[in-house]
């Protein structure tokens, strides 16, 4: 069953047709990768899913409900969390505070005026945040200012923050961009572990074929704003159209 259904989505920026006519179904509890050369419209598509952009045509259904016209925080509360290309965390806050915020957001919703209670008394929330940090091996860094961590740690923290919200769909926008090989492999292992242990659907946009082929159950290739093919990784590897449009140029780079 598809948890995310994208139907006939189109988006135009002035004279540029960024997305032509995109149809995409992401099956529940699968890992679906969207690949394509630069300018193929991957990020535009992702932005349409999370409410940052509103498509000109078509519909986006998440779990049977339309996400179009909803604000990013509303879509997030529906169960879609997003990991950004450059880790977006609360840089001025401590690692622990970074972890507490999504836990509060999960429990209390988009806004709650809890201005007099002390955080100290929220033992459930603190326990959950600590458990998450423990799992992500960030617990000994809990008092650090988040912006002072390494890129790999920031990425782990961001993923942990998304998972703390217990999303049904996790969107990853080039999660290993700009990472060293070791960090990339760590991230792959982490995502594999998440996939195995949790009841979660993952949609991933990625340039790095190594990452894509080690994670994805299904791959959609996007070129010039339209899906070229959608298939399993093995079939995509040998597909002539894909080689021509995409793999041919990136295999050299990789």
């Amino acid at each position, binding site marked *: 069953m598809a948890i995310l259904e994208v139907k006939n989505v189109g988006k135009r920026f002035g004279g540029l047709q960024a997305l032509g006519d995109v149809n995409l179904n992401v099956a529940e509890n699968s890992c679906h990768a969207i690949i394509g050369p630069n300018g193929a419209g991957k990020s535009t598509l992702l932005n349409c899913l*999370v409410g940052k952009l509103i498509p000109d045509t078509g519909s986006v259904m998440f779990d049977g409900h339309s996400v179009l016209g909803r*604000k*990013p*925080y509303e879509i*997030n*509360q529906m169960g879609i*969390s*997003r990991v*950004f290309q450059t880790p*977006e*965390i*609360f*840089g*001025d*806050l*401590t690692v622990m*505070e970074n972890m*507490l*915020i*999504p836990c*509060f*957001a*999960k429990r*209390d*919703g*988009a*806004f*709650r*005026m*809890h*201005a*007099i*209670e*002390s*955080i*100290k008394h*929220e033992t459930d929330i603190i326990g959950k945040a600590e458990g998450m940090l423990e799992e992500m091996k960030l617990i000994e860094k809990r008092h*650090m*200012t988040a*912006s*002072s961590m390494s890129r790999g740690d920031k990425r782990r923290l961001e993923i942990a*923050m998304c998972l703390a*919200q217990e999303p049904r769909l996790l969107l990853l926008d080039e999660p290993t961009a700009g990472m060293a090989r070791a960090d990339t492999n760590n991230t792959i292992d982490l995502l594999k572990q998440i996939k195995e242990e949790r009841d979660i659907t993952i949609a991933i946009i990625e340039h790095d074929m190594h990452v894509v082929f080690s994670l994805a159950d299904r791959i959609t290739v996007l070129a010039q704003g339209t899906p070229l093919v959608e298939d399993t990784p093995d079939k995509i590897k040998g597909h002539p159209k894909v080689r021509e449009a995409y793999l041919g140029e990136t295999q050299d780079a990789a």
Partner: protein
Amino acid sequence: MFGLNKKDAGLLIVVAILALAAPFILNPFPEGSAMAQFNAGYPDLMQRLVIFGIFAIGFNILFGLTGYLSFGHAAFLGVGSYAAIWMMKLLTMNVIPAIVVSIIIAGLFSLLVGFISLRRSGIYFSILTLAFAQMSYALAYSVLTPITGGETGLQPKYTDPRVLDKALEAGQQPRANLFGLEMNQGFQLEMGNWVFTFNAGYYIAAVVMLVAFYLSIRIFRSPFGMMLRAVKSNQQRMNYTGLNSKPYTLAAFVISGMYAGLAGGLLVAMDTQVGAERMFWTASGEVVLMTILGGAGTLIGPVLGAGFIKYMENIVSKINKSVLEQWFAFMPDGIEDVLVAIIYPFVGKGWHLTLGLLFMLVVIFLPGGLVEGGQRIGKMFRRRDANANSIEADAAEQRKPAAE
């Protein structure tokens, strides 16, 4: 204590001791000595110190936590003042209804201004708040003269209705009181050459300030306070974490507006008059200076900054040419004239120049304000291995990029 951790409780106690012992602390020089003009322990100034402290504490909840720089907070102070004076004219000279209503009216007004201004962020938000404040000033100064008294302002008269109080005799000056205790009542304690003044109004204002300070600590340490810091840190992540930042910023805006209204109401309680100049943009700028000078985002910083600026305004501005000449009288004539000529532009009416220079020095060398200065001095005297953080350490750490 009171639901605070040790450090915060310690800070609250220190502030409480300072506030309650202020008549002693601010009057260190004996009466009649050459230094007596540096004494700040007179009721009028002490009241201003704590009232502007409240104003700055409230401003810091908005600016220090969310990073939204409002350039129109004096409007809420002014609205609070007008509300308070009308309570005194219509209801009673008791300060309680005046102060309560000033908080409510300022809160409602800030809800309106905040709702509109918070549609934008950054410089556009600042300009919108400034525009609102200047419109309020213009309205108070001319258009709304029947309500605000225009240029002359308002003060209670014996002819006012004041439905809860007994009628006053013709010509009798109504005085603000708290259940009969008049704000200007007090007594003087003479110890040798020292004279200490204890004033009812000051102590009422000081207690209100302590309550306001206590509430601000609670807000800083609450989940709500953490969300406000999250707004400042990364609004994008906040939106993608399922949090709606707008009600958070609006709530912070209204809370700080209510603090400003409280300060405005207290100003009227202490000195029963109000004029439109209280809402002028320079008054809004002053609270920004206080907060940044003391240390934005720290608990005690705004109070320090407010005290510092109000002290300078009242003390340095009183040093005139003849005082300077008196100081340098022991020098030969030529040198005396030169020294007086050099220093004179920086004192008396030129105190803004001194303030400006000090502000520049603080912003350049102590980006964390006076609080950071205090921490650095504290560090020099502490052993390196001491793990003990100072009271404001976590606030200061958040500000640092922390690459070290």
